């Protein structure tokens, strides 16, 4: 029987080396191209007709846009809308990667921690850059929670620093772990279904179907959490300590 972690292995399909850097094509790269092409194609086709009474595709696109818009307005307020293109791209990319990965035989890009860590680091650096650009040195005041007595500062600053640095890590690990764990459970159950006699083997097979349904839900929830936390972090950087009035 296959190792249940076997589906996560990546092997180069085409060996390409450019200036000594290995940029070989593999399944993950191909999947990302497919996802990007699919999202772009879907939204371009949905956006061309612009009817007053929308077609099915157009109303799906409108739902998506409205959903992301609601998420931004809830967490960052109106001035968060300038990040709409970035956040919509992030949400759709993660959502489609998660969902397409559930189709048997296709690769789940978000089960590679390299991918999720790259997203998380980019998002976090972006929030720091936005904070410094808007507030200058005052941005680093986030390391001092409001109302801290002076004698507690040597204790509170390291704690705040750690809690800030934990943000990109928890973003990356959450998405990676959820996707990897779900697919490993599916692989283990399916392996059991194949290796057991039919009399009992139908049970793990039924579970694979049930858990595949659960995974669709998790794919959505994880994309949602990643994007809403990006909103929260960007909102923190924009509003500093005043954020609690805007964020829920």
């Amino acid at each position, binding site marked *: 029987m296959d190792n249940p972690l076997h589906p996560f292995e990546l092997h180069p399909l085409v060996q390409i080396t450019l200036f000594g850097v290995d940029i070989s094509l593999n399944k993950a790269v191909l999947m990302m191209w497919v996802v990007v092409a699919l999202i772009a194609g879907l939204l371009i086709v949905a956006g061309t007709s612009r009817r007053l009474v929308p077609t099915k595709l157009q109303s799906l696109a409108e739902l998506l846009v409205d*959903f992301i818009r609601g998420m931004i307005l809830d967490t960052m307020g109106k001035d968060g809308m300038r990040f709409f293109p970035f956040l919509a791209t992030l949400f759709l990319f993660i959502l489609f990667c998660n969902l397409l990965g559930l189709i048997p035989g296709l690769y789940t890009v978000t089960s590679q921690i390299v991918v999720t860590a790259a997203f998380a680091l980019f998002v976090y650096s972006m929030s720091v850059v936005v904070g410094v650009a808007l507030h200058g040195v005052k941005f680093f005041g986030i390391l001092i929670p409001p109302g801290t007595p002076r004698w507690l500062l040597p204790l509170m600053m390291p*704690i*705040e620093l750690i809690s800030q640095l934990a943000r990109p*890590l928890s973003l990356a690990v959450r998405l990676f772990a959820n996707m990897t764990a779900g697919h490993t459970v599916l692989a283990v159950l399916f392996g059991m279904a194949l290796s057991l006699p039919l009399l009992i083997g139908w049970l793990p097979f039924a579970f694979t179907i049930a858990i595949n349904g659960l995974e669709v839900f998790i794919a959505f929830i994880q994309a949602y*959490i990643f994007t809403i936390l990006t909103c929260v972090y960007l909102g923190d950087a924009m509003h500093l300590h005043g954020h609690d009035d805007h964020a*829920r």
Partner: protein
Amino acid sequence: MPPSTDPFYAGLGQAVRVGTELLAALIVGGGLGWLADTYLFASGPWGVVAGLILGAIAGVLNAYRAAQRWPSH
């Protein structure tokens, strides 16, 4: 596609979030302590010990803050 203001989804998002929040701060705290031990001071295990304690506090603080944003309507 549910509306993002749906309390069920907002609540579920918060619930899934809290667990990793605890873990990530612990790892970062311990990691910073280990770095300080190994490359800065050669201070034995004490950097890791202090880092883990601070990380645990930071993790609880993060989880508490995540819970504070709970939609209360």
